[in-house]
C-alpha cells in the first residue's frame, strides 16, 4: 500500500465518522431496552426499590441466572416451547411441501379453485377461530397436551404458497426424466425436489419456528397445568407472580430470548427471504 492510498483510506474513514456515530447512536437506542434488562437481571433484588436506577451492574449477581434455571422452572418451559415449536415446524414444512408439490407438479380436477381455497385461509383472521378452536381442543380432551398446542398450526397456506413459488421455478424436464425413470410422486418429491429446495424449506422452517416459539394467546388458553406452560406464558406469569424475584424472572427472560436471537442471526438470510416473499412478488 502506498503512502498516498493509505492517507486516502484514512481520510475516507474520517469522512465516515459522522455516519458511524449515527449508526452507533441508533444501535444504542435500539438495544437500550434489552441492555437494561440484562443489567437488571444481574442486580440484587434490593436494587429494584431504589431510585435512580443503575445503568451498570456494579456487583453482578450471576447466580440470578442459575436461580432462573433451578428455582423457577425455566428448563421445563424451554423444553415445552422447543417441543411445540419443533413439532409445528416439522408439520408445517411437511404439509406445505406435500400440498405445494401437488399444486406445482400434479394434474387433477379443480386444481386452481383448490389453490384459491388454500389462499383464502389467509383471509380468515385468527381472532374468529380462537373460540371454536378452543372448544374443539377442549372437546377432544387435548387441553394440557402437546397436540393441543400444535395440531391447529400444522398446516399453513403461507408455507404452501412459498414452496409452490419455488417448486414452479424448477425445470419441468426433471419431472419428465423422473417419469421415464418410473419414479413415483413421493419418491420424486423426496429425492429430487426436496434436495433442490433446501433454501426454500429452510426459509419456511426458520419462519415457522420463530412464530411458534413466540406464540402467546393460544398457549395461554390451552394450558392449565404449569408443567405445560411454554416459555412465553412462563415469563409473563412469573413476572406478576414472582415480584419478590423480579431479577431472576428477568434472567429467565434473557434466557428465553437467547435461542431466538441465535436463530435469527444464524439464519438471517433465510428469514429475509421468508419475510420478503410476499413483498417482492409484484
Amino acid at each position, binding site marked *: 500500500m502506498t503512502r498516498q492510498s493509505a492517507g486516502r483510506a484514512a481520510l475516507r474513514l474520517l469522512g465516515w465518522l459522522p*455516519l458511524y456515530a*449515527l*449508526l452507533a447512536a*441508533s*444501535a444504542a437506542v*435500539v438495544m437500550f*431496552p*434489552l441492555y*437494561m*434488562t440484562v443489567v*437488571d437481571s444481574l442486580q440484587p433484588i434490593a436494587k429494584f*426499590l431504589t*431510585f435512580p*436506577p443503575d445503568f451498570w451492574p456494579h456487583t453482578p449477581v450471576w447466580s440470578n441466572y442459575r436461580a432462573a434455571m433451578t428455582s423457577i422452572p425455566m428448563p421445563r418451559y424451554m423444553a415445552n416451547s422447543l417441543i411445540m415449536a419443533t413439532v409445528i415446524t416439522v408439520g408445517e414444512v*411437511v404439509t406445505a411441501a*406435500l*400440498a405445494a408439490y*401437488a399444486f406445482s407438479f*400434479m*394434474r*387433477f380436477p379443480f386444481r386452481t379453485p383448490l389453490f384459491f381455497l388454500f389462499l383464502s*385461509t389467509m383471509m*380468515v*383472521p*385468527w*381472532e*374468529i*377461530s*380462537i*373460540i*371454536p378452536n378452543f*372448544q*374443539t381442543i377442549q372437546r377432544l380432551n387435548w387441553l394440557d397436551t402437546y397436540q393441543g398446542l400444535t*395440531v391447529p398450526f*400444522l*398446516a399453513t397456506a403461507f408455507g404452501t404458497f412459498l414452496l409452490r413459488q419455488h417448486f414452479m421455478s424448477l425445470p419441468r424436464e426433471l419431472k419428465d426424466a423422473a417419469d421415464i425413470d418410473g*419414479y413415483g*410422486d413421493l*419418491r420424486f418429491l423426496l429425492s429430487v425436489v426436496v434436495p433442490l429446495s433446501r433454501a426454500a424449506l429452510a426459509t419456511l422452517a426458520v419462519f415457522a419456528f*420463530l412464530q411458534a416459539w*413466540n406464540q*402467546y*394467546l393460544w398457549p*395461554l388458553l390451552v394450558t392449565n397445568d404449569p408443567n405445560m406452560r411454554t416459555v*412465553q*406464558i412462563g415469563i*409473563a406469569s412469573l*413476572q406478576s407472580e414472582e415480584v419478590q424475584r423480579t431479577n431472576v424472572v*428477568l434472567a429467565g*427472560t434473557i434466557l428465553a*430470548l437467547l435461542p*431466538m436471537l441465535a436463530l*435469527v442471526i444464524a439464519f*438471517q438470510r433465510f428469514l*429475509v427471504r421468508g*419475510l*420478503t416473499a410476499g*413483498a*417482492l412478488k*409484484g
Partner: protein
Amino acid sequence: MSEETMAGRRVGSPRARAIRQTVAAAPFLLPSLVLFAVFVFYPLVRSIWLGFHATDPFGRNEVWVGTAQYHDVLTSSDFRHSLLVSGQFALYTVIPATAIGLYLALLSHRRLPGIVIFRTIFSSTVATSVAVSSVVWLLMLNPSVGVLNYVLGKGGVPTESWLTSPTWALPAVAMTTVWMNIGFATIVILAGLQNIPEELYESARVDGAGRWSEFLHVTLPGLSPTLLFVSVVGVIFAFESFGQIQILTQGGPLDATNVIVYSIYREAFLHYNIGLASAQAVVLFVIVLLLTLLQFGVARRWVFYQ
C-alpha cells in the same frame, strides 16, 4: 403411491383419468385440507352459529337468540370504542415502526466495514416475542423506579404514570410494540432497497438529481411495494395484538387499551359470554375483510410495481 397412475399410460375415459388423478393427488392435499377444514373453515361457520346462540357461562343451556347478539355488538358503544382503539393502535404502531425501519434501513444500506453488525442489531428485535418485549418494557415504564421516567426527568420532561393514565396507556403500549416490530420492518425494507436496480440511481445521477430528489423519485417509488407490505402486515399485527395488552394494562384504564382482540378475549374467557364474543369476532371478520379488499383496491392505484 402407485407408480403406474402417473406413469403416463393413456388408458381409460377422461372421467377415469380424473378419478385416477384425484386419487393420486389426495394424499398430498388431504393433510392440509383436513387441518384447514377443522381449524379454519369450521371455526368460521361455528363462530357465526355461536353468534346466534346464547349459553350459560359454562357453555350449556344453548338457546337461539336470533340476531340479538349481533345487534348488541353493532349498537354497543363499547364495541365501537374497541374498534376505535384498535384503529388508533394500528396508527400508533404502523407509522412509527415503518418510519423507523425505513430510517434504519437507509442508514445501514451502505457498503461500510462492519455494517453487517449494525444491520444485525437493527433487525435483532425480530427475535423478541410479545411476552419478552412486554416484560422488558414493564420495568422501563414503572412510574417510580423505571428508567424512562428517570431519563425524562433528567431532560426536564414531565414524568407520567404511563400505564395507568388514560391518555398515555395506549401510546405506551404502542411504543413497546413499535420497538418489537422495528426489526421486522428494517429487514424487509433492507431487502426492498437491495431490489432497486442500480441503473435507476445512475440515470437519476446523470439527470443531475440531488440526494433528496433521488430519494423521492427513485428510492420511494422503488420501495412502495415493500412499504405497502410492511404496513399491511403491521395493520394485521396491530389488529391481532393481545399479549402486550394482557401483560401491561389488561385493557384499562377506562378501556383506553381495550383493543378488539382483548375485548373478545375478555367477553369470552373472563365474562364467559361465548355467544356475544363470537358475534364480536364475526363482525370484526367482516370489517377486516372489507378493509383488506379496500386496501388492495387502493394499492393497485398508487403502488409502483417493477
